């Protein structure tokens, strides 16, 4: 896997990034921008806004590199969380402003979600796509809702009309399934 090989030098990369090295940044951008852009696009579902947000996100990452602690977690995970939080915040603030509101129906998120899932898979990750297809649909739906929709467990339970306990159990099971699928 392409990204896997780069993990070898992740500590070196982080060191360079802490020195605010321009080439290290370019490498970081080239390596991660498609994934982050894809996630942001998945959350906000608007090209223009996703592009603006991607800029904000990379500036944020650059300015907050000092707060990234390699002992607490993986770099890509940290970047993903920054991206998800930024995009979800933007989505929520858009929803609270009726004048900018495009989709008033919250269910539309999931309608688009399902449409989105039918799009052509990224050719770089065809193997992974096959793996994800093995994920049970009800579990996948929950992960997407929480991870890309920024739903809390309570919100997800309400959204899907399920008991909170079921949602929690299902999310845990979904993540473990995902873990096992990628491991094999």
């Amino acid at each position, binding site marked *: 896997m392409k*990204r896997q*090989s*780069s993990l070898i*030098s992740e500590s*070196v990369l982080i060191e*360079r990034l802490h020195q*605010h*090295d*321009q*080439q*290290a*940044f*370019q*490498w970081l*951008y080239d390596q991660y*921008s*498609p*994934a982050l*852009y*894809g*996630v942001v*696009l*998945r959350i906000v579902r608007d090209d223009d806004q*996703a*592009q603006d947000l*991607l*800029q904000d996100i*990379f*500036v944020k990452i*650059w300015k907050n590199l000092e707060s990234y602690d390699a002992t*607490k*977690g*993986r770099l*890509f*995970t940290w970047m*993903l*969380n920054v991206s998800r939080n930024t995009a979800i915040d933007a989505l929520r603030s858009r929803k609270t402003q009726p004048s900018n509101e495009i989709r008033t129906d919250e269910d539309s998120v999931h309608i688009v979600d399902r449409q989105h899932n039918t799009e052509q898979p*990224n050719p*770089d*990750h065809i193997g*992974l*796509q096959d793996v*994800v297809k093995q994920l049970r649909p009800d579990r996948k739906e929950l*992960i997407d809702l*929480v*991870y*890309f929709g920024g739903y*809390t*467990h309570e919100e997800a339970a309400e959204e899907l009309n399920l008991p909170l306990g079921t949602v*929690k*159990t299902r*999310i*845990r099971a979904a*993540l*473990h399934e*995902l*873990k096992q*699928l*990628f*491991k094999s």
Partner: protein
Amino acid sequence: MNVAEYITSGILESYALGTVSDQERREVECLSSIYPDIRTEIDELSEALEKYALLQSVEPPAFIKNKILEQLEFPVSEPSIVRPMYPSEPLSGPTFRTTWLVAASVGLLLLAFSFFLFSRLRNNQESLASLRTTNETLQAESRQLTDWQKKQDQVTALLRQPGTRTLVLQGNDKAPKGEVLVFWNATSKQVVINASSLPQLGPDQQYQLWSLVDGKPIDAGVFDVAQSGRAVQQLNRSIARADAFAITVEKRGGSPAPTMSTLLAMQPVNS
């Protein structure tokens, strides 16, 4: 604390998905720094989500990169130091080549330098050899001069001794211009001559000095015509008595009896 129970409680999944409260997040991070098993579980969950996120990858428009770069400030960068970070690049290629180039250059330089040193060494050896020869020549001359000086000192000492007589032996018709000075001290029995004006002899001939005692000739030593600067030479015979001195030409090494036909000069002591 029961780590296994904590791992299966579901909190780590919530943490990985980012749905925990700030307090829960701090708790998880604290515990994961203490228990490696918790950290491993979080990493595995995160990695699964990373891979899931990678599936969403969409290439952003190219202009965004430049727009971001415009907004960022970079300190003076050092590109050459960063390069080795790229894992996909064939790092060993150029480095290997450069190493060889440097090694070869150093080798050539060393070779040239060795050659320079070698030629210097040879020059020095040559100069040393010629200096040694000169030195030996000078030493030999110095030794000769010292010897000569000793002899001269002895001669001078003899001449200054009381009782030394000086005789002038005039050459006869065989050596009309010949004149030999004989210095003789009867007490010390030493004889010294100054024979600079006699004609040169063949290589197999020498002059011989005789002392005449009661009409009998006694060998007083052989000598060559003195070279320039060697006018005075001491003869290695002890002469205690002499009525007269005579000089003949004899074969090299001298004769037991004088050849009368070659008599050159004769002078009585008490004339």
